[in-house]
């Protein structure tokens, strides 16, 4: 059995607070978007969504600071040389190997806690989609300070569509993320690691 202390307290706190904010934003957002008054009353959903949006911005800045100065940033560096090979191996494992008991192509270590697919998707989410989501959210809040139209189309409409598309993509990420974490050695290995900080494997790494 091996045990690795992968997730320091600040990171775990950040992860779960970020998750809480994200789920709240998703629920209030869906409630407003589809006018689902039974899910969350409209009058409550709007201020909660706006407040959580601001807090999510803070959360993202904490993530950025943690990566810049907290030493967490190294996990998000993409190795372009090995990326194609690693991606193929990882995808092959999820689509085939996992069903035939093939060994996991990636082994968690203190220096590499994320496999190639994780690195790529997390970088895409945290440095690509999340800033767009946050910026479009702020653009909503301060839309009166923006020009009335952009390329002949109402600015609010453009912002709305960007915010919406990115929100759909991040909701998709949440579904995949929630499932993929069950593909550790046991279905709860990864979940426990994000709760306790310790990544434990019976077979050893």
């Amino acid at each position: 059995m091996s045990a690795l202390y992968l997730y320091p307290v600040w990171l775990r706190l950040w992860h779960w607070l970020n998750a809480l904010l994200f789920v709240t934003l998703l629920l209030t957002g869906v409630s407003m978007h589809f006018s689902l008054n039974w899910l969350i009353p409209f009058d409550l959903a709007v201020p909660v969504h706006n407040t959580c949006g601001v807090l999510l911005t803070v959360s993202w800045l904490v993530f950025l600071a943690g990566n810049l100065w907290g030493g967490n940033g190294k996990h998000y560096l993409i190795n372009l040389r090995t990326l194609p090979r690693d991606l193929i191996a990882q995808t092959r494992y999820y689509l085939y190997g996992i069903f035939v008991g093939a060994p996991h192509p990636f082994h968690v270590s203190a220096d590499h806690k994320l496999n190639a697919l994780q690195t790529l998707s997390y970088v895409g989410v945290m440095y690509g989609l999340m800033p767009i989501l946050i910026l479009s959210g702020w653009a909503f809040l301060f839309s009166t300070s923006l020009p009335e139209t952009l390329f002949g189309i109402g600015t609010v409409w453009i912002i709305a569509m960007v915010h919406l598309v990115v929100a759909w993509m991040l909701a998709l990420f949440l579904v995949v993320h929630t499932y993929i974490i069950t593909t550790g050695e046991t279905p709860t290995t990864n979940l426990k690691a994000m709760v306790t900080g310790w990544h434990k494997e019976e077979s050893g790494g």
Partner: protein
Amino acid sequence: MFSHPQPDSRPGTQRLAIGPRQAARRQTLTQAFLLALLVLTGSAWANPSDTVAPNTADPAAALASSAPMPKEQGLLKEDSQDCMRCHWMENMAYRDRETGKIVNLSIDRDAYSHSVHSELACSDCHDRGFSHYPHRSSSADEALNCVDCHEGRQDDGAPNLIGLKHEYDKSVHVTEGVEAFSCFSCHNPHTFHPARAGESVVDVVAETNNTCLDCHTELLTPVPKGHEWLPRPQAHWGSVRCLDCHTPLEGRIPERPSHNVLAAEDSNRLCVECHSKGSALLSQLYNYRAEQAREQDGFFSQAIYNDAYIVGMTRNPWMDRIGLTVILLMILGVAAHGLGRYYIRRRQEDSK
């Protein structure tokens, strides 16, 4: 009740009455000094009534400001005071012999002082035929005209209303020949003011809509006539102006609603004009509300706690369909993946 309390206005009248007396008393106390002052400044004390401005009742304000008082204007102007000796009374009214209706002649000082015309004295508009009392009924027939008056006083900052007039001339109120309809049917020049900064959206909407409902009383029912198709009409009326649907979609400007009020059959009935598409209507409505809310409680807090979100504003049927389909397929995909893992693991465990 003749002694109707008017805390804001009555003391003001008294103030003006005792003003000269106070000045005279001070004069006797500081004669020598004032003599020199008179020589130096000339006019200030020569006309004591000029020195009596509304702020003099507040000793702190009087002490704090030693600068010359602003020139009296609006209702404080001397000849306006003559008018207001009667017209401040709330029960100043008469019954018109021909129509049998009560004609209200009372001027609300507070509302007037907050109106766009607050700087105007009575005689600036009502300039002839009022020297006799009681006024001749013909005095009231003076042809006051908003557009002409504003055009003539553009140099004084009166906004040009000619654009409004063009819109108004096309409105159903004119084309249907509504009897005796004029600017004053909707706008009371003694109280009129544009939506004030800091006024809540709900109040602005209520005030605007009440102007319509003052005449259109037939609409004061739970499901108003002609609005049966509109879901939750009362909720709409509480947050959207009548004008937002009953004016043309084209040519809207964010600053003010159009005055081309449409007939019911020409009015906007497309829900998606507000509830989804990035139309001009949507932008005007959204920005109007966000801006109103912002001025109410400050830039930052109101950006977050505004009530500018419109249900369905972010909606696009195709985007929703694609988004929901992708999410659903992904959920099915991972569920199938998970089930596959589960069954293979069980088979492996069974075979051991």
